[in-house]
C-alpha cells in the first residue's frame, strides 16, 4: 500500500474530526448564551454534578490532605522545616490537587454517565425525536450540562479545598502533635487569594471540559451498545487527558514569571 496515501488519509481524518469537534463546541456554546434557557434542566444537572459528587470528591480530598501532611512531614523533618507543612498542604490543595483530583473523579463519574446517557439517546433515535418535536438537542441536552459543569466544579473544588485542609489538620494535630492554633494560623497566613482563585478557574475549565467531552462523545456515538461503550471510554479518557494538559497551561498562565 502507498505509504504517503496512508499518512494523508490519517491526517485528513484527524482534521475532519477536529473540525467536527470545533463546530460542535461552537454550536453548543452559542446555545448556552442564547435564550431560551432551561432552568429546570440546568438545576437537575447541577444536582447531579455537584451534590451527588460530594461524597466522592470529599473522600478524595480528605485523604489527599492527610497524606500530604504525612508525606511532607517525613520529608521536611530532614531539613527541620516541619513548620512549613500546613503551608504546603494548603497550597498544594488549592492550586493543584483540589481541582485536578476533583476534576478526574468527576470526569469518571459525570463524563461517563453523560456519554452513556446521550449516546443511548442517540442510538435509540431519541435525539432525532427531540428534533422532530421542535426541540433543539443542543439547547435541551448539551447546554444545560455545559452550564452546570462550568458552575458546579468550582463549588465542588472549594468544598474539596476545605475538606482537604481539614484532613491535613487532623494528621498534623492528632498524629504529628502540632498545636492546633499554630497549624491553622500557618495555613491561613501564607495563603494568597490568587492561590484559591487560580484553583477555581481551573475547576471551571475542567467542569466545562468534562461536560463537553461527555456530550460530544455521546452525541456522536453510533452502532448500538458497543458504540455507547466506546463513547463512554473516550469521554473519560479524553477529558482526563485534557484536564491534565489544561492544568499545566492554566498554571503557566497564572504563575509563570
Amino acid at each position: 500500500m502507498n505509504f504517503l496515501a496512508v499518512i494523508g488519509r490519517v491526517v485528513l481524518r484527524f482534521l475532519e474530526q477536529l473540525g467536527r469537534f470545533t463546530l460542535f463546541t461552537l454550536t453548543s456554546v452559542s446555545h448556552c448564551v442564547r435564550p431560551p434557557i432551561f432552568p429546570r434542566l440546568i438545576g437537575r444537572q447541577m444536582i447531579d454534578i455537584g451534590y451527588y459528587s460530594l461524597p466522592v470528591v470529599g473522600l478524595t480530598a480528605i485523604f489527599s490532605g492527610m497524606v500530604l501532611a504525612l508525606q511532607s512531614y517525613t520529608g521536611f523533618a530532614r531539613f527541620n522545616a516541619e513548620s512549613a507543612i500546613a503551608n504546603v498542604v494548603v497550597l498544594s490543595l488549592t492550586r493543584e490537587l483540589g481541582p485536578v483530583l476533583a476534576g478526574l473523579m468527576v470526569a469518571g463519574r459525570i463524563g461517563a454517565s453523560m456519554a452513556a446517557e446521550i449516546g443511548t439517546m442517540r442510538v435509540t433515535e431519541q435525539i432525532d425525536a427531540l428534533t422532530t418535536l421542535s426541540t433543539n438537542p443542543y439547547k435541551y441536552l448539551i447546554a444545560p450540562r455545559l452550564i452546570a459543569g462550568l458552575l458546579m466544579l468550582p463549588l465542588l473544588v472549594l468544598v474539596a479545598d476545605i475538606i482537604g485542609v481539614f484532613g491535613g489538620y487532623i494528621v498534623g494535630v492528632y498524629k504529628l502533635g502540632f498545636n492546633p492554633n499554630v497549624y491553622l494560623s500557618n495555613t491561613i497566613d501564607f495563603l494568597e487569594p490568587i492561590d484559591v482563585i487560580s484553583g477555581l478557574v481551573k475547576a471551571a475549565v475542567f467542569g466545562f471540559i468534562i461536560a463537553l467531552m461527555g456530550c460530544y462523545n455521546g452525541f456522536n456515538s453510533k452502532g448500538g451498545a458497543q458504540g455507547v461503550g466506546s463513547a463512554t471510554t473516550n469521554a473519560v479518557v479524553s477529558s482526563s487527558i485534557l484536564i491534565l494538559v489544561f492544568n499545566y497551561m492554566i498554571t503557566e498562565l497564572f504563575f509563570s514569571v
Partner: protein
Amino acid sequence: MSTPPKIHLENVCKSFGPKDVLTGIDLDIAPAESVVVIGGSGTGKSVLLKCVLGLLTADSGTIEVDGTDITHVAANDRDETNKKFGMLFQGGALFDSIPVWENVAFGLIQGSGMSRADAKERSIETLAKVGLSKDVGALSPAELSGGMQKRVGLARAIAGSPEIIFFDEPTTGLDPIMADVINDLIVACVKDQGITALSITHDMASARKIGDRIAMLYHGKLIWIGAADDVDHSSNDYVDQFVHGRADGPIHMELRR
C-alpha cells in the same frame, strides 16, 4: 393532480461515501393522502424519511412541503415546518428520563410553550385516543410493553395536531394482533382526521391497510407507484416478488456465499 401536493420530492439523491442509497426519488403526496413506501431491509427507506424530516440532508434534488423548499434547511433551523410534522419512530424513541404523559406532552411544552397543566390534560386526552388509560401516563416508558410503547409513540406524534405524520415501520416487532390494533389506530388517527401520512414498512398487511397508495423502493429509486388495491396485480415482477415474499425473482438479496 389538480391540488398542489403537500409533499413534493423531485430527483432526491443521497449517498454515504461511495454508497449511493437514493438515486433519484420522485414522489408527490396530496393533502390527506397516505402513501406507504415498501422495500427490503437496507434499501434506504429510513434515509428517505430522514431526508424529508431534515435529520439528513439530501445531496441533490428538491424537497418541498406546502410549496416551501426545505431541502437544505437543517431540521434544527426549521421550526415552522417541524410544527407541521409528527413522527412515529421504529423503536418508539420515547424519552426514558420522563414519565409517559410528559413524553406525549413534550412537543406541546417544549415546542409550543404550553403550560404544563394544560399540556398534561391534553396528553391524557391523546393517550385515551390510542386506548391508554390515565394511569399509564404516570408510568415510565421502560415499564411499558412494546405495543404500548408504540401507542405512546403514536400519541406523541399526534399530540401536536400535525398536518403530516411519518411512520417508520409502525408494526415491526409486534405480534399480528397488536400490529392490526396499531394499524387501526393509525387509520383512525390519520385518515379520519385528514392528516397526510408517509409511512415506510415491509409489512404488507400494514401497507395495504394504512396506505392509499403504495410505492416500492428498489436500488435507490421508486420503481412502482400505484393504488394500494393494485399492489397484488401490479404486473411488475419486483413488486410481485416482494408482495408475495418469494426468495426467487428479479430481486437478489446481497448475500455472501
